[in-house]
């Protein structure tokens, strides 16, 4: 830019004047003050009556007049008039008689009642050659702007451009930071109301998934044992940002309150709807599933305000039932009447699948949605597993599908499975209980119709674990509880050992089975075998009751798969 004007060297007095005014440019941190300082500096150095700065709004392709004494902000296309010409050419324009120049726009004068005689128009370009804006200096006191003024103005403009750009960037940072902080807070509020853990409900396996989008979405869920039964909620507030995150949180709190005050399902749904209709902004609403499950008789009753589809996997047929909403979204308007809720009975193995839009609508890079069919496929493929595993599989499936595509919305799921009945018996800690244990497993297999080919594997697992408990029980005289349940294609085995130290059987070291015979010891072999013969082994420890819970799942398909995969050793001691 400095090459454009054939400027004379600046005099010492000029330099001092510029340095003097530019000192003032270092201080301001807000745009208004900075613009005032820039204009003030220009007026002072160039002995001008007025000054104005047009900031370049690159995204909109406009020049915006932010400061001009007595004039309201104006926006013009960045190519128009003298300022436009200057912005485009990035060259200083000196107009000694404005009304004689066709590029001059007299409308600003008309609006302000001020008469512009002569004018310097200067491009403001920062160190990185970025156009920051255009400065205009009007009416030199006692004459017109000369070549010296042009040189002086050019030197000043460089300082102003850098100072302005600094403030604009700081502003953008501060704004971004404010927004980020606000979102974070809303997010924290939203997350804080989610249940910390799933309640333990006999005969049920429950898991929830909450995978928030980067910017806040408006999902929530709730799973809680209350007086009315097992409360199940999945909600999704419209829009993104702070408001939806807060409104779902509000809905969840209202629901809990309504139920605490003794409301039944219909009352709670209607009351919360009407309260939300009164308080939410006109264009906002929340789609929500609100259900109550009676875990004794396995009856689920629910209302759905615009939350769909609601899927129920039926284990007996391997198919899905699909339910539509019973009402419009919560808060859309007050309820005049409410249809009766949907009521259904969950049978052993059935799964209630509540999934938010964020899952159904997650797109891949080609813009295709994940969709209901893929949700069903994932449930079907994992129906026999624990719900925690299904939840993980669902997330993995969505992620695998979406690839590099961004997650636009919260992804939430609540999965509730009715378990097959468990037959349980307690056994004293003694080796002579192994025989009764074997009888118990055989009888239970027969009673529950479990594949008898799995019996040797189950017996091995039970014996190894039970033996360990007898050996390492550390003086506990509590009986060991053994439970057996039929699962899809197999059996689930649970062993509960009370009043003991924690010992995670899933983390015990493997045996090096390639060792020469002289170095091999029988220790550790039992757990090594179990981990190879079971489909899954889980270990949980409850500190308060000092209780070890081991859960094993063994299926016919798993046994066949492992048998096919297992190759004999690569060498033999007699080779």
């Amino acid at each position, binding site marked *: 830019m400095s090459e454009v004007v054939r400027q004379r060297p600046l005099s010492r007095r000029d330099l001092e004047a510029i340095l003097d005014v530019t000192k003032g440019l270092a201080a301001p941190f807000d745009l208004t003050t900075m613009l005032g300082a820039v204009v003030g500096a220009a007026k002072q150095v160039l002995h001008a009556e007025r000054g104005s700065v047009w900031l370049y709004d690159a995204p909109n392709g406009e020049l915006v007049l932010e400061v001009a004494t007595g004039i309201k902000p104006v926006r013009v296309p960045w190519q128009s008039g003298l300022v436009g010409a200057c912005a485009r050419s990035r060259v200083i324009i000196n107009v000694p008689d404005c009304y004689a120049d066709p590029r001059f726009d007299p409308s600003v004068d008309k609006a302000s009642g001020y008469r512009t005689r002569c004018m310097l128009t200067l491009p403001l370009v920062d160190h990185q050659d970025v156009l920051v804006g255009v400065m205009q200096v009007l009416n030199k006191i006692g004459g017109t702007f000369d070549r010296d003024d042009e040189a002086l103005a050019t030197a000043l403009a460089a300082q102003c451009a850098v100072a302005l750009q600094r403030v604009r960037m700081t502003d953008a940072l501060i704004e971004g930071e404010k927004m980020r902080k606000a979102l974070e807070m809303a997010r924290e509020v939203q997350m804080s109301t989610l249940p910390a853990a799933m309640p333990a409900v006999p005969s049920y396996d429950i898991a929830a998934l909450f995978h928030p989008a980067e910017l806040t979405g408006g999902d929530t869920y709730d799973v809680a044992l209350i007086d009315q039964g097992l409360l199940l909620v999945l909600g999704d507030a419209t829009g993104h940002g702070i408001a939806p995150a807060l409104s779902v949180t509000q809905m969840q709190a209202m629901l809990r309150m309504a139920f605490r005050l003794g409301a039944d399902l219909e009352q709670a749904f209607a009351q919360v709807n009407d309260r939300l209709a009164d308080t939410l902004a006109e264009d906002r609403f929340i789609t929500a599933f609100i259900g109550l499950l009676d875990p004794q008789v396995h009856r689920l009753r629910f209302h759905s305000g615009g939350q769909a589809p609601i899927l129920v996997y039926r284990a007996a047929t391997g198919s899905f039932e699909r339910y539509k909403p019973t009402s419009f979204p919560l808060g859309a308007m007050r309820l005049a009447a409410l249809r009766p809720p949907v009521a259904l009975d969950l049978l052993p193995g059935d799964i209630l699948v509540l999934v938010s839009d964020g899952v159904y609508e997650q797109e891949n890079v080609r813009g295709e949605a994940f969709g209901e069919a893929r949700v069903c496929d994932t449930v079907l493929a994992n129906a026999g597993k624990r719900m925690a595993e299904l939840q993980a599989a669902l997330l993995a499936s969505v992620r695998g599908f979406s690839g590099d595509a961004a997650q636009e919305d919260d992804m939430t799921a609540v999965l509730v499975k009715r378990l097959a009945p468990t037959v349980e018996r307690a056994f004293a800690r003694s*080796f*002579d209980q*192994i*025989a009764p244990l*074997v009888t118990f497993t055989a009888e239970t297999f027969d009673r529950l119709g479990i594949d008898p080919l799995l019996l*040797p*594997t189950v*017996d*091995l697992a039970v*014996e*190894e674990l039970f*033996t360990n408990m007898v050996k390492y029980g550390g003086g506990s005289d509590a009986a060991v509880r053994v439970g057996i349940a039929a699962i899809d294609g197999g059996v689930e085995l649970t062993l509960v050992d009370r009043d003991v130290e924690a010992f995670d059987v899933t983390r015990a070291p493997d*045996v090096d*089975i*390639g*060792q020469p*015979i*002289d170095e*091999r*010891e*029988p220790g550790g*072999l*039992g757990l*090594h*075998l179990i981990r*190879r*013969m079971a489909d899954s082994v889980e270990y949980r420890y409850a500190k308060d009751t000092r209780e070890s819970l081991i859960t094993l799942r063994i299926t016919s398909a798993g046994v066949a798969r*492992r*048998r096919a995969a*297992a*190759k*004999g*050793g*690569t*060498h*033999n*001691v*007699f080779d």
Partner: protein
Amino acid sequence: MFSIEHGVDGKVVVAGRLDAAQAAAAQTFLDGVDGTVTLECSGLEYISSAGLGVLLKTQKRLLAADGKLRLAGLKPHIVDIFTYSGFDQLFEIVAA
């Protein structure tokens, strides 16, 4: 139910369930055998790590005296256990 006894041709016949409760009895019996011994296992319904431990201890003792245990007639699910534990590498396993 578990049994271990001398059969014909110098074989040792095991049958039933060799579990932790029976391991001591099996060990006592096998401590009394010498040389190369064929263990007839076609009646063996079940074995756990306690039973494997008995076989391992016996095998080490016999190998040190140039003898060994030979296992005959293992049922498929018993073979699985030998495979998963690597015990198929420690014993000569033959058909019945």
